[in-house]
């Protein structure tokens, strides 16, 4: 869930268009005075290119290659064709883990998007306070590990203040992270707590692009805030919302840290999210080939979801004239 890993692939078309638009002008103004800076460019690009080839392109290709091998780190990889994939399709724990991950993503993204939208609109329509924006962002400064441990404590069944309040109100204590029906929603909400502020700020930035006159005009016509939200804010925010949604969904599918410090995949595999299962296969059982195959599966799922989302939300187009 880093900015790097959650950066939207949807920037691709945006960036592509940008490049295409500016290029002709660039060439014309440059042509007279400067015929290329090949040598200098080579120096400037070299470190980044090295990093790209060695730590991004090569591992991607190697990850795909390893998924067709049996590999335990100690002996060289041994080509086994589609064995890992056959095994994956027949592995009930894999399917269960995929199901758990999807459940997590649906709750996490559903709650987070609605909450972030609400916060962003409040920050725009109610107050423009930079202090409030700073406060909303603070949980994002914590590591997932920190957020996980803090909420593990707050929600502790016996001693946690959360359960103290619940029992003080006359309800039964809830074993949030120890119960198989509660665990996934709880982890999903912990991560909402950490990420919602950052998401809200991204949406807030999108809201800033909506001309204020539109709200002024609507107000003169007697429109309510509720109506303005549905008729002005939502339609005009759509492209930004779509991009944010795509990048948060990708981040959400990669959940690992919170599970690793709270439930360790339990109780009884109830929170065995895909990334946790992959980690266990690689570093617990040294099945790097099988782990790689599951990573490829995740990659394919993510690409498909991104493509569908991109199409459905028309993320590349704007309605703002």
């Amino acid at each position, binding site marked *: 869930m*880093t900015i*790097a*890993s959650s*950066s939207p*692939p949807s920037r691709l078309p945006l*960036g*592509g268009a940008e490049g295409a638009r500016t290029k002709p002008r660039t*060439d014309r103004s440059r042509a007279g005075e400067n015929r*290329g800076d*090949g040598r*200098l460019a*080579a120096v*400037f*690009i070299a*470190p*980044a290119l*090295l*990093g790209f080839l060695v*730590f*991004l392109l090569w591992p*991607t290709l190697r990850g795909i290659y390893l998924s067709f091998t049996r590999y335990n*780190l100690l002996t060289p990889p041994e080509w086994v064709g589609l064995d890992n994939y056959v095994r994956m399709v027949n592995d009930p724990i894999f399917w269960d883990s995929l199901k758990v991950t999807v459940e997590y993503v649906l709750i996490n993204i559903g709650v987070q998007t609605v909450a972030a939208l609400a916060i962003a609109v*409040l920050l725009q*329509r109610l*107050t*423009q306070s930079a202090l409030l924006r*700073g*406060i909303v*962002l603070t949980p994002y*400064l914590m*590591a*997932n*590990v*920190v957020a996980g*441990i*803090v909420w593990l*404590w707050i929600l502790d069944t016996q*001693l946690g*203040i959360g359960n103290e*309040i619940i029992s*003080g109100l006359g309800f039964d204590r809830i074993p949030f992270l120890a119960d198989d029906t509660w665990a996934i929603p709880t982890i999903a909400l912990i991560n909402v*707590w950490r990420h919602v*502020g950052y998401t809200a700020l*991204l949406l807030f*930035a*999108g809201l*800033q692009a909506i001309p204020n006159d539109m709200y002024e005009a609507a107000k003169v016509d007697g429109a309510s805030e509720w109506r303005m939200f549905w008729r002005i804010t939502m339609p005009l925010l759509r492209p*930004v919302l779509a*991009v944010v949604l795509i990048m948060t969904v*990708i981040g959400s599918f*990669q959940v*690992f840290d919170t599970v690793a*410090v709270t439930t360790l995949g339990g109780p009884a595999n109830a929170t065995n999210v895909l*990334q946790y299962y992959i980690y266990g296969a690689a*570093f617990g059982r040294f099945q790097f080939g099988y782990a*790689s195959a599951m*990573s490829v599966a995740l*990659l394919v799922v*993510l*690409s498909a979801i991104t493509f569908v989302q991109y199409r459905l939300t028309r993320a590349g187009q704007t309605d703002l004239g």
Partner: protein
Amino acid sequence: MADLAAVATTTTVRPTRRRPSFGRIMAWAVMAAIVLITLLPFYWILRTALSTNTALAAHPGDPLPVDLTAGGFERALGLQSTKEAIAQGGAGGGLKFWRYLINSVIVSTLITVCQIFFSAMAAYAFARLRWRGRDKMFGLFLAGLMVPAIFTLLPNFVLIKQLGLVDTLLGISLPTMFMTPFAVFFLRQFFMNVPREVEEAALLDGAGKIRIFFRVMLPMASTPVLTLGVLTYITAWNDYFWPLMVSYSDSSRVLTVALAIFRAQTPQTGYDWSGLMAATLIAALPMVVLFGIFARRIVSSISFTGIK
């Protein structure tokens, strides 16, 4: 960017000086609730860290620290003897958060400084230098955005192991030290928007391209570089999965990994919540301070990072 926020404030607040409606009061109530949910856990960390474990068990709902002590912090920093630690409900295992703190600082600094500098160089070459294959190469970098970082972790671990860099700080830093497609893309966008006249004026003065990059472009990009830098630092500091794979011993252990280990060392009597919260605070505080210093410039330019 900071000015942008100021402008926005003056233009939007203007017409809302009426009797507060029911809806507005409700909206403020919701905002207040959000602030509470956001900030209360931080208070609870502090309150727990300053309490003793025995008192915590006796008074779980007390809003103030119970049986005020610095024992939790001493335990987290490894200042207590094993016997003392066990007596106070700790695990007694040696934890040297000073060491981990320094490791985290080294790793995050190395990643941030190198990544931003190299990415800025590449971004400048993509935005303002003319060379053959530029657009094709940029397309390739952009395609890198499509690969979730997590996919490269396993193969990168294999590579780091083959390089003999497992359990070193360099091994943790290396994969993100040279670039991320996002950083290159983000800075290129900025450089492309710098008016060409600025660069041409410097060229007429006889400055070379290298000089222009260091003396004109980089200083102009100070706000985006700062924003990207702080976000990169926070991301590197908070990363858990990759350091977990690469580091095995104290020599390369960073705070997040140490925290998870601390959490896993459950003493006989139950969790050492006091020590755990103290450790959590030590791990989280530096980022709060860092953010506090630059908050004014960053909060308003996150827009820039996210979407534009």
